[in-house]
């Protein structure tokens, strides 16, 4: 969580992006100078299927307020099937988090192709706004990591 000068809550967003589509899509939104908030920090992974649910929980434990996972559109996966596994894993994980009473809008999966720079920026704007509305993540943090 960051707090800027006017003390408006600034959520920390971790975005996992697959190397072939979404990371390239993020690059494209940069090339096209399409703004999205600095809150979003991208971690590059080879494929969305590389993202272990542990990474997502870890981010929340360490103080992330939202985690978004971006991959190639279903059917377009560079590794042909990776994002299909991602889809099942994340559906179940998110459903479990929901079951545990974690706010639904803190997590998201979005398919962004390498050509969808505009979609990437729009998604990040939208997601950041949604998380901002939720306020700081209190339910999934590890109290030992709480910043004094």
């Amino acid at each position, binding site marked *: 969580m960051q707090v800027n000068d006017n003390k408006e809550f600034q959520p920390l967003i971790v975005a996992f992006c697959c190397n072939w589509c979404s990371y390239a899509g993020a690059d494209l939104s940069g090339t096209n100078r399409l703004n999205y908030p600095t809150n979003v920090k991208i971690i590059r992974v080879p494929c969305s299927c590389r993202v272990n649910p542990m990474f997502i929980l870890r981010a929340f*434990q360490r103080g992330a307020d939202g985690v978004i996972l971006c991959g190639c559109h279903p059917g377009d996966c560079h590794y042909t099937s990776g994002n299909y596994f991602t*889809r099942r894993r994340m*559906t179940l994980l998110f459903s479990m988090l929901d079951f545990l009473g974690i706010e*639904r809008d803190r997590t998201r999966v979005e398919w962004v192709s390498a050509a969808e720079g505009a979609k990437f920026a729009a998604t990040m704007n939208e997601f950041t706004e949604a998380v901002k509305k939720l306020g700081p993540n209190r339910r999934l943090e590890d109290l*030992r990591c709480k910043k004094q």
Partner: protein
Amino acid sequence: MQEAMINKAKQLLADGTVNRVIGWKKGEFVYDITPAIFETAEELDADFVYNEFTAANVSKYLVKESKKEGKILAFLKPCDTYSLNQLTKEHRVNRDNIYVVGIPGGPKLDAEKIKAKGITGITGIKNENYTLKIETVYGEQTMPFYEAISDKCASCKSKKHVTYDELIGEDGDVLESNRFDMVEKLENMTAQERYDFWRAELSKCIRCNACRNVCPACTCEKCVFDNPESGVENKAASNSFEENMFHIIRAFHVAGRCTDCGECSRVCPQNIPLHLLNRKFIKDINSLYGEYQAGEDTTTKAPLNAYTTDDCEASIVHERGVE
């Protein structure tokens, strides 16, 4: 039943089909029964027991036992056979080294439920027409049989043995069970209520690892939570680690593999309803990807190791149930 089992075990030992038997051994009280291995007819006569308190699922012991010299006889209740099948599917047991005798299952009783009625000083329990006559040092007490049925048996999913070499008694059927009722009840609560419910339950966790160590799906050579190199190792019961990592990931790791044997909740010293986490995954898998029962056979691909191109999107979580 106990008699028939002892005789069967003696026969199989005598004819050399097996060289040991895994079953249950009498305890100090009527209810504190320990899984045990018997090697001789004398041991069987002296200590073998099968009654309303032999709830323990012995299939996990077969991971180790089936790798030893010689065949072992395993008495398995219907629910235990699902666990064994799942272990066979995952190459964790050597099925050829196991002689499975299917035995009728529950309902098993839970001593804690009797004690929760304030009944203490128990010296004997008898079931007479579904009324428990409990002898105690404070005098005889009674309670209805069904009120003492263990949670795992109260929501029994199947009386069918999915793998066996021989059966004692008739095989049963897969049951229409009410096992998802509590999951559904939670789903219909608000997020805040669900959060409060789980925080209250999971904060009781003392990280004794009984749930994990008893779980037939948790047979990892080295658990990530015990492995300092995994980066998520954590020995302590620490505020918010169990709630936010350990139990979620454990449930995720057994998702699509958990047969819903109910051992996790049965052994939890803090009575946390951990099986609800597994059942949530099972319910989701059933509704999103088609009915799937882990352990039903040894070949079907686990739902998390499979996909279809028209699976639902993760956003379905936002679209259903109560926020």
